[in-house]
């Protein structure tokens, strides 16, 4: 069965320190993978996506993610957190069908 697991429901970091949001997936097919960000009371905005090209994907606002097939992971990172990064982050997998599968989200808190 296809699935996606976000390993942390909440992550807190201090401003200026690295961010790591973890995502593991399960898919029978070579999937497309996405990270979306949702700020409070807003819609979802695409941060980055992997679609079988380069395994290290760069996104907006300094975020990156690395596709590791052997570990079935697609973790999101940023070298230095900013206060404006505080939001909910969703890992999404498209396992070769019409239906996107969403993780349950990770709420990132950035401490001053």
């Amino acid at each position: 069965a296809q699935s996606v697991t976000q390993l942390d429901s909440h992550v807190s970091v201090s401003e200026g320190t690295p961010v790591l949001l973890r995502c593991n997936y399960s898919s029978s097919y070579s999937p497309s993978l996405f990270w979306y960000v949702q700020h409070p009371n807003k819609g979802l905005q695409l941060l980055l996506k992997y679609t079988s090209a380069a395994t290290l994907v760069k996104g907006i606002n300094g975020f990156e993610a690395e596709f590791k097939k052997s570990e079935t992971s697609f973790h999101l990172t940023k070298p230095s957190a900013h206060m404006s990064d505080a939001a909910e982050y969703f890992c999404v997998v498209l396992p070769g069908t019409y239906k996107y599968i969403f993780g349950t989200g990770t709420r990132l808190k950035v401490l001053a």
Partner: protein
Amino acid sequence: NAGVTQTPKFRILKIGQSMTLQCTQDMNHNYMYWYRQDPGMGLKLIYYSVGAGITDKGEVPNGYNVSRSTTEDFPLRLELAAPSQTSVYFCASSGGTSGGQETQYFGPGTRLLVL
């Protein structure tokens, strides 16, 4: 391009009332989706469409109906509102599921409260 637009932004319904949530996209996308997001939860798929005249159920279709008469529009109908339908509803579209068209674009959401 306006992208994906949704109306209304917020609505309060009484139990048993009906309403239609509107969704329009101007990107000529074939694929359109309706999701609901309950507080503190991820998104659950209600219905989706792969083209005009073609719709199918997602994970949580009960209490909802959709139609897709044009490429641009994908309205979601609630026939008999229930408190369990209190949620935020997002419409999304994509150009396809491969070939660089996989990105879903989301509308700003409709916040629905059923009392």
